[in-house]
């Protein structure tokens, strides 16, 4: 495909050069101007129904909706001219006629676009004195609840279900000022990707039942992360309140998840808040585990491993850094992991985006680093090997197989039920409590950051394993997870050339990543 012709125009006095076919709204973004909008969303087809993005274009007879007007050569656009501000103020006044002023009890409050734009450009008060329209809240099924009073009928949700999920569920029912979002007969929001409408909704009309009344938007701490619940590796924001994850939201990444994430991944965050954690390093004294210092525990673990054949039962939730250091600790031994499986649930409107069958973050990273995927986790454990259990919970594993091990070292955040015979327990942080990278099913290496504080004396896995390597007499001077990753990139051909700096927060594919179908932008330009 030939390079697209560039078009030059002026927006608010700033010269802008964008490819032909770009909308004024997107062009303004490149100039650092966000034109207020409700119905427009880059992941959805353009509707042009909210009239919020009206701007003045010189030599045009009337104001133009910037989301649906493409740029032309030499155009001069005024976003904040008197005429366009006046028009948008009028639109806001109309939207607020029936919008209740219940911000104090609305979950969207603080991240509501109606609040934001009214504050920026709206009237100070309403001229409307008649009673407001009232409709009761409705359970839409799935995780979605609909509060019609707050709805501004931007139809983002309708378009998402129809054009992205390809399962028409929602519609605009009734006419005129009675219009509201309704469900088609016999349909509800149980589609595995339906909860995306909650993020898409610019106001508090579509709310998550899970998050309802849990926290206010301004109380949340946010961390860029990766959804750890399947191999797709959707980019997410983990939001915490008082050190507990209360919500996960998608973070846009055109290469992986566009603007979306599935309901299963979204709601499956409670395991990261678990309280049944190992919080102190422990060594076995007789029949009990005795808490000890980190130095003593690392020394004990090194003594158990030194010069022995090691078998590692790893968890595919561990980061590339932890798995790489495990391969170093192995000293010529082998490693295996197992992965829980579920049903695949694709999102029809986006290429190569699905809730994957394999429900763990780093299955492909583990394979790239030489761990074997197996159903029989301890099958490779030979008589007399030292077993290292790394992050694996051993649920459903026959305790009898463990007797083949001459010694057991547990490096985990939760103490597995069946390992009463371990000699050392090293507590590590879980996925939400440390920094690292994971590799998704297309071989894309993506960074995740720490969202919560780790409990007790728990340390990040890369730090524990680095210390263990040092105690085994190997080179180990890792001060940051990026140091571990740099070593990984220097020693592993697939990871060559990658570093935390080049990865950024959108990730990069491995050198030998499996080829994927190129991503077509979602229904862009379709009307």
């Amino acid at each position, binding site marked *: 495909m030939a390079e697209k012709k560039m078009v030059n125009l002026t927006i608010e006095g700033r010269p802008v050069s964008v490819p032909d076919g770009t909308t004024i709204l997107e062009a303004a973004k490149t100039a650092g101007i966000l034109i207020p909008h409700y119905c427009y969303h880059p992941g959805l087809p353009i509707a042009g129904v909210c009239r919020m993005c009206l701007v003045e274009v010189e030599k045009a007879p009337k104001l133009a909706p910037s989301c649906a007007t493409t740029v032309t050569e030499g155009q001069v656009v005024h976003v904040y001219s008197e005429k366009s501000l006046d028009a948008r103020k009028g639109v806001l006044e109309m939207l607020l006629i029936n919008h209740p002023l219940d*911000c*104090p*009890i609305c979950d969207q*409050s603080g991240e509501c676009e109606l609040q934001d734009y009214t504050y920026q450009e709206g009237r100070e008060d309403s001229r409307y004195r008649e009673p407001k329209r009232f409709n009761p*809240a409705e359970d839409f099924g799935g995780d979605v609840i609909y509060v019609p009073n707050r709805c501004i009928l931007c139809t983002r949700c309708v378009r998402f279900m129809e054009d992205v999920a390809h399962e028409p569920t929602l519609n605009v029912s009734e006419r005129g000022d009675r219009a509201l979002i309704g469900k088609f007969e016999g349909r509800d929001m149980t589609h595995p990707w339906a909860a995306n409408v909650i993020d898409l909704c610019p106001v508090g009309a579509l709310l998550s039942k899970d998050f*309802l*009344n*849990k*926290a*206010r938007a*301004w*109380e949340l701490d946010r961390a860029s992360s990766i959804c750890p619940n399947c191999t797709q590796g959707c980019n997410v924001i983990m939001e915490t309140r008082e050190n507990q994850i209360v919500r996960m939201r998608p973070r846009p990444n055109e290469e992986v998840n566009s603007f979306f994430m599935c309901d299963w991944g979204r709601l499956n965050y409670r395991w990261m808040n678990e309280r049944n954690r190992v919080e102190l390093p422990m060594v076995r004294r007789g029949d009990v585990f005795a808490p000890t210092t980190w130095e003593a525990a690392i020394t004990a673990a090194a003594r158990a491993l030194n010069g022995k054949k090691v078998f590692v039962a790893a968890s595919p939730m561990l980061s590339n850094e932890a798995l790489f250091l495990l391969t170093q600790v192995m000293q010529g031994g082998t490693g295996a992991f197992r992965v829980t499986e579920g049903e695949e649930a694709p999102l029809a409107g986006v290429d190569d985006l699905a809730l994957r069958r394999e429900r763990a973050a780093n299955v492909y990273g583990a394979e790239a680093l030489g761990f074997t995927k197996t159903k029989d986790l301890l099958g490779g454990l030979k008589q007399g090997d030292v077993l290292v259990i790394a992050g694996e919970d051993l649920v459903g594993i026959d305790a009898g197989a463990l007797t083949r091990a001459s010694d057991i070292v547990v490096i985990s955040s939760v103490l597995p039920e069946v390992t009463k015979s371990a000699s050392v327990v090293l507590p590590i942080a879980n996925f939400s409590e440390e920094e690292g990278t994971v590799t998704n099913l297309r071989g894309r290496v993506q960074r995740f950051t720490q969202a919560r504080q780790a409990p007790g004396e728990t340390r990040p896995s890369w730090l524990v394993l680095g210390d263990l390597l040092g105690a085994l007499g190997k080179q180990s001077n890792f001060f940051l997870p990026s140091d571990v990753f740099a070593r990984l990139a220097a020693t592993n051909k697939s990871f060559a050339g990658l570093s935390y700096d080049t990865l950024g927060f959108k990730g990069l594919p491995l050198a030998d990543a499996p080829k994927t179908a190129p991503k077509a932008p979602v229904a862009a330009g379709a009307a």
Partner: protein
Amino acid sequence: MAIKVRVVERPVEDVSYIRATLRGMALTAKHLFDVNGRVTTQYPDEKSPISPRWRGTHRMLTTETGKAKCVACGLCPTVCPANCIKLVPGEDEEGNRYPLVFEIDEFRCIFCGYCQEVCPEEAIHVGRHYENSEYSREGFVYDLQRLMDQSHPVCEMWDPEDPKGE
């Protein structure tokens, strides 16, 4: 070396204590015979009036049905400069948002009255009340029920029509 001290000679009427003592006794005697009216307030039997804008310990107002007016919007813990309000929002039987936990630590409170000013439901108020005693520090962490049980008048804050209180 010895320190040289210069002794200043002053007139005797300046250094005599007799004059000062008599002056003091005269003031005492004046109050003794109640020349200017009584000055002492017989607290606690008698209380001095306090300003309608006095900001004392809190009170939570209730609806006609006896429920707290609070909708757990979270503005008061956000605005509180002393960070003394603990709020955990939840849902009641009717699905309305209400506070599961609402606690104010009156020891940490600096009685600025921001909570009353920010409250969109006019639920939390600082009260015209200043006599508090407890047997333990914990007793000064007022929970929702205790805040609702308070009955003292509340602070009138400022009147937007008359911001200077004239």
